[in-house]
């Protein structure tokens, strides 16, 4: 078997006194699409940021193509990041630039393309995420939440990355647009042999795009020594997982959590 493209080895992350990840192992192989699921606040976004070196692990190592990310030189790190497309959970559009300039940003920064080629490429990317030409001249503040997300997706994909990291690509989209984005993720994978990590809460997205599903569990709910990755396997096995926590999550059942929330839900 080939070596993993992305590898988290015994990674722990702590912010001040709050421990978010503890001894997490995760391997993502080339051309695989891994869905990362887990309840809100369990550290999914943090995991994605670790991969591109926006955050440094307090312990353990993050490897990209076998090399520790936090020991890359500045130039190597830049080169690595240019190969990765990152869709931020909040889209993170540059609010002083138009939609067009946002999507064109990476292309222009990298250089090598003439303005007409940039224009063509941006058009194509915006079309793929279902945005009309009229949106190009708008400022991010004038867009709806779902549109912003899609511009962020177009921007992340503009450089034809080898690796795509999607942080909740379909949250806040209507059901039809959700399916369009699901199809886009599949299409991108077929077309360019991309490796992807998709953070999502949508079980339909998981079922549709994921080769493998990894579920993280919030550290605060685990007793010491329990592994934080509670599921790592095919999407089909989720509902029959041996671990009741996994079944509870994918079926979306509150159960014992209601008692935890206090007397509000029980007369």
């Amino acid at each position, binding site marked *: 078997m080939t070596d993993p493209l992305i590898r988290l080895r015994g990674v722990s992350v702590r912010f001040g006194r709050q421990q978010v990840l503890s001894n997490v192992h995760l391997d993502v192989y080339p051309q695989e699409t891994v869905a990362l699921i887990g309840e809100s606040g369990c550290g999914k976004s943090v995991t994605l940021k670790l991969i*591109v070196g926006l955050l440094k692990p307090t312990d353990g190592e993050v490897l990209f193509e076998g090399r520790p990310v936090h020991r890359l030189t500045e130039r190597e790190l*830049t080169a690595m*990041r*240019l190969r990765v497309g990152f869709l*931020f959970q*909040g889209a*993170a559009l540059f*609010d002083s630039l138009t939609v067009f300039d946002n999507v064109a*940003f*990476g292309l222009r920064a990298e250089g090598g393309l003439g303005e007409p080629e940039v224009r063509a490429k941006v058009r194509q990317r915006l079309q793929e995420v279902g945005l009309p030409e009229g949106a190009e001249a708008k400022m991010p503040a004038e867009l709806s939440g779902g549109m912003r997300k899609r511009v962020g997706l177009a921007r992340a994909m503009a450089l034809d990355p080898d690796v795509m990291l999607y942080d909740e690509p379909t949250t806040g989209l209507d059901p039809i647009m959700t399916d369009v984005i699901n199809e886009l993720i599949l299409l991108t994978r077929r077309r360019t042999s991309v490796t992807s990590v998709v953070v999502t809460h949508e079980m339909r997205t998981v079922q549709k795009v994921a080769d493998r599903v990894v579920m993280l569990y919030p550290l605060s709910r685990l007793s010491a020594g329990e592994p934080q990755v509670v599921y790592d396997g095919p999407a089909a096995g989720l509902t029959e997982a041996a671990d009741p926590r996994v079944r509870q999550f994918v079926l979306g059942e509150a159960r014992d959590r209601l008692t935890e929330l206090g007397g509000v839900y029980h007369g």
Partner: protein
Amino acid sequence: MDGIGDWALFSGRAIRGVLSRHLKGRELLHACFDIGYSSLVVVAVTGTFIGMVLAVQTYAQFHTIGLDTSIGAVIHMSVVRELGPVLAAVMLAGRIGTAMAAQLGTMRVTEQIDALACLGVDPVKYLVSPRFLACLLMIPLLTVIADLMGVLGSSVICLQVFGIEPYHYWEHSARFVKRFDLLSGLAKSVVFGGVLCLICCHRGFHSRAGAEGVGRAATEGFVLSFVAIMFLDFVLAMITTTIHDAFWPPAGARVA
């Protein structure tokens, strides 16, 4: 202490960004225009008033000992050497420094700075370097405006209100205030401008989440800049006096 080390690294990176020719002319022009447009009027107005206040305060003392015509020399010296540069710097910190801290803080909080890094752009070089250079270029201009208006304001009061005799007023002033004083004031202002910009940008980059965090970054930027300006003013005053004395020894020394 940790913070100062981090700030020094940050500043080094921003300065290197100015030297490496990544800077876009248009961005720089935009930043310069922004600074000039928003600070020119406040600097001019406060400069005029400071000059006027100085004139009113000094006149009483000088008049009683019959040194009316020397007032100009004294006031213009303090304006050119101290008040002009400090005033321009403090206004720049208030108008532009806080705005920069808030802008960059918002970009940090909304992950735009992370997004820049992911698109292969160095956020410090891209965001801070043009602002830094614009501050360096614009603050001497603001200082000149503050100097001019300070001199103008004080002279209007002295000549028009107190009726001091103009010929000797200007004569004394011209003899007393040297080009060295003007230039050392301008040089000082450049140091202030650069430092306050780097402090405010650094605060913005390390802004905490939320509206409160961004607000705090802006206030911290201003307060720290203000303290730094005052501290540097003291240090630079010592240095310029030493330089001045080396070239133009004080009268006592010359006689000996």
